[in-house]
């Protein structure tokens, strides 16, 4: 009901504040909530609204900047500091909070006094989007921020998991954190000889431990598009493929001409169905109530997705890519969003969106291996139960026992634990819609800087954080209720039941991670967590191992006379009465289980070194302060 009401109120508001007429040209090019459109650049576009095409705001920014968006500065008129303040719109208090700088040597920069200069001038220029009359300069008040239902990217603040007041109280602190971080970024870029003049830096320092830490603490929102593009080496990709995107759009036009009924083209049809189901709660993706004109971002989304399906027929279109492309379009222009989508689906998530989705299964196998290795305490909640093997198998032979033991070792790579039904979507959509938006964006920051192992690291961190909730679920295989599953007929009552509770936790808990720093401060920045040893090399090796194992299971499964279907490679294979099969399955499992993935073990010295390093750092900090 609430949703409906909010939608209604949004429509009312939208009527009052027709964005096209009101805001033409008023927006900076690089603002986090203002996607760029180069509609006129690409031939695939045809706008039925002449006002749209003639409006300068098309090129300077997304005209439908949502009504509740926080104040936005026009960067050409202001220096960096002012635009920082304007973007976040909140009253920034002068006292410094050090929360974001614990365990960080950046304080040596002596930036404390600079931070004090960041107190917002009362005369900071804003476009107060909530109020038509305030389109000129006006200082955004905290009230103006708190009364809006949408965040700075146009997403709804409130949902089933986070109340408005929770959001507001978090954002009060977090927006200040963002201002401080942005200032630090500005200093870093200055020091690196890349001063920020127009609040849209295109170049960033070369990789370093410090830069990595800065990225992990969040890239300034309005720089994100450029920073992602830079760290993912997008320009390199684009340079190698100049003109391709335009060609794809031409092709798209032709196909549409030849098939006026898009239903005949499989991918086009599915894309069409998903366009309006991509961030329907985000104001940029909604059409105004008074007409049915498609918002420009939906048009871009269509072009990017169709172009992609033509560019890579092996993938075509896979549901979840709409969310990847949709989020990219909030930060990048269409062509760059397209190439970023290409990069994500090939470099970071290879095979994940392919027609057979095998990449998903491989990555889930890798994740399960990592959970088992790095957070065994969580593995105990989610690992597949051996119960049903044992209980299906009334006549337990010693040889079967051994088989079962061996199957335990690796079988979960093929017969993935049920929890992967939940975690698969974490990878497919790169956490879009899985965790709240600021947290998603922070993960994306790190993904583009640190590559795909960061998705695994984050997944492990989220699972680790959910441990407390998991511990509240009913102990496994000790259920007090009937659960009428087919398993139950074989006697393993209760397993499914506790699984359900675990599903609930794994599905729900991430949605409460409003504050990105939660994951980082509690897990990622803590050296004592082994999972932080996980690196890209480990993931690459692990992916190869799991892919090979899955292939073997599949092949052996076929040898054993089962079909290749995962559903059928059950314990039934092992329990067949035929003696010949017994031997075969024994041998097979023996063979399979002999290959166990070996994680790189950390040297005992590593921890010691880290702690020494830590101490030295602290001492240096102290010394600096005393000086």
């Amino acid at each position, binding site marked *: 009901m609430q949703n409906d009401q909010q939608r209604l109120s949004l429509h009312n508001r939208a009527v009052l504040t027709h964005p096209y007429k009101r805001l033409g040209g008023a927006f900076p090019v690089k603002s986090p909530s203002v996607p760029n459109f180069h509609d006129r650049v690409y031939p695939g576009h045809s706008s039925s609204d002449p006002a749209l095409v003639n409006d300068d705001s098309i090129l300077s920014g997304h005209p439908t900047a949502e009504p509740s968006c926080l104040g936005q500065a026009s960067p050409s008129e202001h220096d960096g500091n002012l635009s920082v303040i304007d973007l976040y719109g909140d009253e920034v208090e002068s006292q410094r909070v050090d929360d974001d700088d614990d365990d960080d040597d950046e304080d040596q920069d002596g930036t404390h006094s600079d931070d004090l200069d960041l107190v917002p001038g009362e005369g900071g220029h804003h476009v107060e989007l909530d109020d038509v009359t305030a389109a000129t300069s006006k200082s955004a008040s905290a009230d103006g921020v708190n009364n809006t239902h949408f965040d700075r990217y146009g997403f709804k603040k409130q949902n089933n998991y986070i109340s408005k007041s929770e959001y507001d109280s978090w954002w009060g602190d977090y927006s200040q954190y963002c201002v401080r971080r942005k200032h630090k970024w500005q200093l870093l870029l200055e020091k690196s000889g890349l001063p920020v003049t127009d609040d849209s830096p295109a170049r960033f320092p070369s990789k370093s431990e410090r830069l990595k830490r800065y990225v992990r603490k969040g890239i300034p929102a309005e720089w994100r598009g450029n920073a992602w593009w830079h760290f993912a080496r997008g320009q390199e990709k684009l340079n190698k493929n100049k003109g391709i995107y335009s060609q794809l759009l031409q092709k798209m036009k032709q196909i549409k001409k030849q098939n006026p009924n898009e239903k005949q083209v499989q991918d086009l049809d599915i894309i069409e169905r998903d366009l309006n*189901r991509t*961030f*329907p709660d985000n104001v940029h993706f909604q059409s105004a109530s008074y007409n049915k004109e498609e918002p420009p971002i939906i048009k871009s989304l269509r072009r990017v997705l169709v172009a992609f399906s033509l560019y890579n027929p092996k993938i075509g279109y896979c549901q979840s890519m709409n969310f990847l492309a949709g989020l990219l379009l909030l930060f990048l222009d269409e062509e760059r969003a397209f190439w970023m989508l290409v990069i994500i689906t090939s470099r970071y998530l290879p095979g994940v969106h392919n027609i057979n989705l095998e990449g998903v299964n491989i990555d889930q196998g890798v994740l399960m291996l990592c959970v088992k290795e790095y957070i065994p305490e969580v593995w105990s909640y989610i690992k597949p139960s051996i119960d049903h093997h044992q209980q299906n198998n009334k006549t337990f032979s010693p040889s079967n026992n051994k088989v079962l033991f061996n199957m335990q070792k690796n079988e979960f790579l093929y017969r993935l634990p049920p929890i992967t039904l939940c975690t698969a979507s974490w990878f497919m959509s790169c956490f879009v819609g899985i965790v709240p938006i600021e947290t998603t964006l922070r993960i994306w920051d790190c993904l583009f800087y640190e590559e795909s192992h960061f998705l695994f690291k984050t997944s492990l961190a989220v699972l680790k954080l959910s441990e407390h909730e998991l511990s509240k679920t009913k102990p496994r295989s000790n259920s007090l*209720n*009937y659960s009428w599953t087919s398993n139950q007929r074989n006697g393993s009552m209760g397993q499914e039941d506790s699984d359900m509770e675990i599903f609930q936790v794994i599905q*729900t808990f991430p949605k409460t991670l409003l504050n990105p720093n939660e994951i980082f401060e509690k897990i990622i920045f803590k050296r004592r967590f082994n999972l932080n040893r996980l690196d890209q090399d480990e993931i690459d090796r692990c992916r190869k191992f799991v892919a090979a194992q899955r292939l073997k299971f599949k092949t052996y499964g076929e040898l054993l006379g089962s079909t290749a279907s995962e*559903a059928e490679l059950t314990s039934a294979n092992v329990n067949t009465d035929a003696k010949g099969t017994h031997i075969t399955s024994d041998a097979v499992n023996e063979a399979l289980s002999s290959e166990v993935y070996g994680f790189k073990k950390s040297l005992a010295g590593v921890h010691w070194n880290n702690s020494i390093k830590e101490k030295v750092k602290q001492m240096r900090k102290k010394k600096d302060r005393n000086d």
Partner: protein
Amino acid sequence: MLQFKLVLLGDSSVGKSSIVHRFVKDTFDELRESTIGAAFLSQSITIHPHDGNEANAKDVVIKFEIWDTAGQERYKSLAPMYYRNANAALVVYDITQEDSLQKARNWVDELKNKVGDDDLVIYLLGNKVDLCLGTPDAEIGQESNEDGDDEQRVRAISTEEAKQYAQEQGLLFREVSAKTGEGVKDIFREIGEKLYDLKRDEILSKQNRQINGGNNGQVDIHLQRPSTNDPTSCCS
């Protein structure tokens, strides 16, 4: 309390998630995000078994654990994980989309071939009847302004055609509207009753065993589950 696992299958955008949300939260959003992978929800209902047996005349609480799946064809390879051990499957099609019934038929075939459980209750469900009601003028005027995607559409699949197919295959069948809620509660009540009927002997024997202390008190159907921490599930 009895607990049953239920899975939703069907073509993309036929309204699987909307049906679940109507059932679980009694809400409807004109535009709902596409489901990636699958979503898990749960909801309980109370049924009144009418088997003529005095001893069993009391109400029975049934908890459904619902797997709502992504509709795109390629997600089919993940589907066995969802329908494994399911007690019931809702196979959904869109009465305004001709292809969607064929997709539903494919799902029914797959379920019958792969699950191999005679007790699996399959329910064929035609969604979006609200789009094909009469008096189009009044409705277009009122509603289409509010929701960008709303329009009156032509029915593409007749009730007769689907009904006949369901009868041939021994499926439960109903046409519903997730938008208005028409028929949605009935689906789950029917499934609950059907499953109760199918499992009655098993249930009664378990009850008796428990009463006679034959099972070391391990099973107690009267105990409530501890409340879950998922605000999306509103167990009644």
